[in-house]
């Protein structure tokens, strides 16, 4: 079972964990993205996330469906934020439940790595003296 959503309001981490919990699960792996206070030595004031929402949900669903074919997991939840986020706020929560931990760890890792490569969401870093759209590392 999958739950894929984009929110413009703060994410509720506990409700994400609760949603993936099943009686059959032996473990839940959770990835929580957080806004870091600096990039390459420059102080970050806030991040702005923009999404092509319909496509972003499609692509995240595709990743989750792919995971189900690769690993024996029970439930996958991906919640992603848009809008302005301050240092310490949470842009993304991924939670995966499985009978055994290896599948949960591997699936969660695959989810965040693939989201960063393919899902049409963009972040702008706002510094004290300017702002810049983030371009991923080659």
């Amino acid at each position: 079972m999958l739950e894929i959503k984009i929110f413009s309001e703060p994410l509720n981490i506990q409700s994400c964990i609760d949603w993936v919990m099943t009686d059959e699960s032996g473990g839940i792996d959770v990835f929580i993205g957080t806004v870091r206070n600096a990039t390459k030595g420059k102080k970050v004031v806030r991040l702005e996330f923009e999404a092509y929402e319909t496509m972003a949900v499609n692509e995240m669903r595709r990743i989750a469906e792919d995971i189900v074919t690769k690993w024996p997991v029970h439930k996958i939840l991906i919640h992603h934020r848009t809008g302005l986020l301050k240092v310490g706020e949470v842009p993304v929560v991924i939670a995966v439940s499985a009978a055994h931990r290896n599948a949960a760890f591997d699936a969660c890792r695959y989810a965040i790595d693939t989201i960063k490569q393919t899902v049409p969401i963009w972040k702008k870093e706002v510094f004290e003296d300017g702002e810049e759209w983030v371009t991923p590392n080659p």
Partner: protein
Amino acid sequence: MTINILAFGIAKEILGGAVAGVNVAEGVAVEDLKGKLEQQFPRLRELKSFMIAVNGAYAKPGQMISSNDEVAIIPPVSGG
């Protein structure tokens, strides 16, 4: 035909707004649209790459576009 191109992230700044009109031949291929966009908005060439999405999915270079498709420029993504 004129296609309204949706733009996001840095592409929105390069195109000067969230939507930009581009004149192309009916049934233009994705790769030709990319060339046309680079002509009209040369700063797109400064991006490491950009993709075209048609109706909410990544499009292949040879895919044809018609006037009622939803077309978007996808600059390098940076979510997560």
